[in-house]
């Protein structure tokens, strides 16, 4: 599985906390407004500092264009503005995987991904995984093996699992556990979840 976004260092302020705080935080208020609309030099060269930006992306096969704030996360855009509420806001800081979606086929925590990073890219959410009435084999397997209880973490698990099986078609049990260790299920149904992913791998192989 693709490396998940960096976590916060103990006791420190993450890059994301800093960015999210820009709108209200004292640091952001003091430093950023003079820069908005201008460019700053970083290691990657000269980059613009946005307050807002219009982005164009493809979500579940549909082209979408909308203006987003620089500090708006992909998760907030999906849930609040595109009404795609399948991805859940559970921890809102990249700890639980409940908001996992695929960005160009790679699973990402949508709460840790700024919406502007999705500009020009393809986003797939749980709502876009089935093909019409035909469920994705991972979705089928989660129903058949009872791979959930309350179902709140399930969209995240399914999106992570589907991307994982694309890359690793015949995983061992240990590989499945490793791949899903970035997703938390508070009902504690892991033993059923990795059973479901194993069953899905077999379905995909037979497909």
């Amino acid at each position, binding site marked *: 599985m693709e490396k998940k976004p960096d976590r916060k260092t103990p006791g420190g302020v993450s890059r994301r906390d800093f960015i999210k705080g820009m709108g209200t935080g004292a640091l952001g208020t003091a430093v950023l407004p003079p820069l908005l609309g201008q460019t700053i030099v970083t290691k990657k060269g000269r980059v613009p500092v946005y307050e807002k930006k219009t982005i164009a992306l493809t979500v579940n096969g549909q082209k979408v264009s909308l203006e987003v704030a620089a500090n708006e996360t992909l998760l907030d855009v999906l849930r609040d503005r595109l009404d795609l509420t399948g991805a*859940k806001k559970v921890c809102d800081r990249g700890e639980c995987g409940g908001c996992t979606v695929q960005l160009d086929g790679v699973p990402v925590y949508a709460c840790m991904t700024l919406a502007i990073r999705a500009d020009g890219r393809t986003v797939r959410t749980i709502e876009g995984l089935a093909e019409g009435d035909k469920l994705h084999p991972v979705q089928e397997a989660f129903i058949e093996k009872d791979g959930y209880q*309350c179902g709140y973490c399930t969209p995240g698990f399914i999106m992570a699992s589907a991307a994982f099986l694309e890359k690793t078609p015949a995983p061992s049990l240990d590989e499945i556990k490793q791949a899903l260790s970035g997703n938390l299920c508070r009902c*504690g*149904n*892991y033993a059923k979840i*990795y059973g479901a992913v194993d069953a899905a791998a077999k379905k995909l192989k037979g497909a």
Partner: protein
Amino acid sequence: MNTKEYMAEARGDTPGQAAAAASKPAPEIKAPEYRLIGKSTSRIDGREVVTGAAKYTHDVKLRGMLIGKILRSPRAAAEIVSIDLAPALAMPGVAGAIKLAEGKVRYAGQQVAAVAAVDERTAEKALALVKVEYKSLPYVVDWEKARDASAPQVRDGKPNVEKINEYGRGDVEKGLAEADVVVEKTYRTGFEVHNPTETHGSVAAWDGDHLTVYDSTQNVHSVRDGLARALKVPAANVTVIKNYMGGGFGSKLGVNDYTIASATLARQTERPVKVLLSRRDNAVCVGYRPSSSQTYKIGAKKDGTLTALQLTNMASGGIGAGDDVSEPAVDIYKCPNCKVFEETVYTNTGASRAMRAPGHTQGAFGLEGAMDEVAAALDMDPLELRKKNYSTRNQGDTGLPYSSKGLDKCYDLGARAIGWERRNRRPGAGGGTGPWRRGIGVATSIWFGAGVPGTLADVVLYPDMSVEVICGTQDIGCGTRTHMAVVAAETLGLDPKDITVKLGNSDYPWAPGSGGSQTTPSVAPAVRDAALKAVGRLMAVAAAQLKVEAADIVMTGRKFSAKSDPAKAAAFADVYRALRRETVFHGERGGMPMDQFAFNTFGAHFAEVEVNIETGQVHVLKYVAAQDSGQVVNKLTADSQVIGGVTQGLSAALFEERVMDDATGNPVNPNMRDYKIATALDIPEIISIFVDVFDPRCNNLGVKGLGEPARVPSSPAVANAVYNAIGVHVREIPMTPKRVLEALKRKESGS
């Protein structure tokens, strides 16, 4: 909270109601052969969940909806001098603001004020503008310090330490004098946070004088009644809806202050208001499992017969009372002399709440650890010690025989499945490879979960042959929708997918809260009753069509025929259509002879672990959970309940602990990383076994609850396996590497 209060809260008792219903005895029935009940049926709402279509409270979006945010006290104890909402109200985009506190705040995180604004960011900014003047007061956060007579008083004019339970039977001193072996040890459990994935939250909307609230709750009816009381409106004018919920585990049972705040803001602004709590809020203001410090003094004869059992407990639940943990000690084992004394100590932290098998979970950790240490002192097999003191009747106040008890079967089947003979004959005697030591442990549970008499459900037959089952219960993840469909389909000779299930709405027929492991044993019998009435009516219609007596009719497959003349038969569809209009059948969960029997659920769990004696790490390698919860409705979802109970217990045994900053009263780990929760990597193979026990006295299906029974023995089973591996009991959960290494040091020094 004591268990009786918890069960009453979960049931939503009104005085007299349950007692009146309980007096009607259930009819005696034989264990039938079922077509669907007890088999595996995949969830009927599976497609909604796996496609992201299932709408949870967090997903509710209403036209014109505002976002509400709650300001919380940063101080652990303070006098509120003033609250000024005006600067917040003056901010563009802010539609309303209310004060939520006056006088004193007693913990950091207590609500003070709330605002409603057009979006989350505006609401957050507005909160920062609310001016609160506090006058700090002395406070105490650490429960051990709060016991000192000189500690600041948490409650005005009342001491911090308060007795919560006292119990006695026989003569413990005499029992101890008769004992060949006396073991006295102290076991501790920490603060475990529910941390449901969906944080607590509500969306409130008024339409004239009718209030509709979408709430992430385990009890739509009690939230309705609580809102009606708080807002001084008729309960008939309040509807509470919960379609799906992302976990609760006991922390979402009653009406909450944020729900009242959302309804109040909605009334003030005349717009729908959504209030969602944060992950941090989960560690401060919506409860946790209270801590315990339990000292057991147990006396036993050489043959293992218990002669005395004494428990002293100090619980701590913040500004609320901690749990009574005595039930396992009082009731699991036969022992003539038993004495319990329990106190709670108040601190300036948020109040604890019921958490999956409150009290029993902590108590089982202490008692079952002590039982293993007694077994070691006697050089006896811990399983034999438990069997030696097996009881067939309640050991507490009632002394009634159990209506059924399959714990002996749980012991035998579980021991076989784990390979009990492979355990170290004496704790720590097994050796191992390199630093790793292996061990196997067992623990027992007793819990309630017989269900609630008076639970109602309707079955509606429509002229187009569709069938609806309606009950004002909640599906909190156990698969209640599917259980209702399975029972109705079984009874009516249909498929579960033919049944439309409606639940999660306080306008539907009454059902208790989904707590106390009573949802299925309350709802399934009510649905069965309604469906049997529907079948009775169809049989009467068939009898009229076939011109025979109704008693002569049998329903087989989708056909009615006369016993006296099998050639006389009518198709199910033809009989059904003759009803002509929709017909409602009211079902009720009947009573049980509670004056004659004790109704309980039982279980025995077995864990195999390996422990690294150099690093203190613990891995659980294999787990077997054997349960007696009577008739299982759906094997597939029952398996999940057990796996969840085991996983949460394993997680609590090894990882979970809320840590408070004693200097400020704020949590150090109010998130999902620093508060460690088990992941897929930590979970071994889990085998669930349901022993074959039929309990027709309990209800018309012999169904009992399972959610909590599967949680109670899981932490002690892991702890006892660690003891069996390393030869010293860690006696405190979570068993972090540090605590395991400290225990090993204790063993080395022989103390």
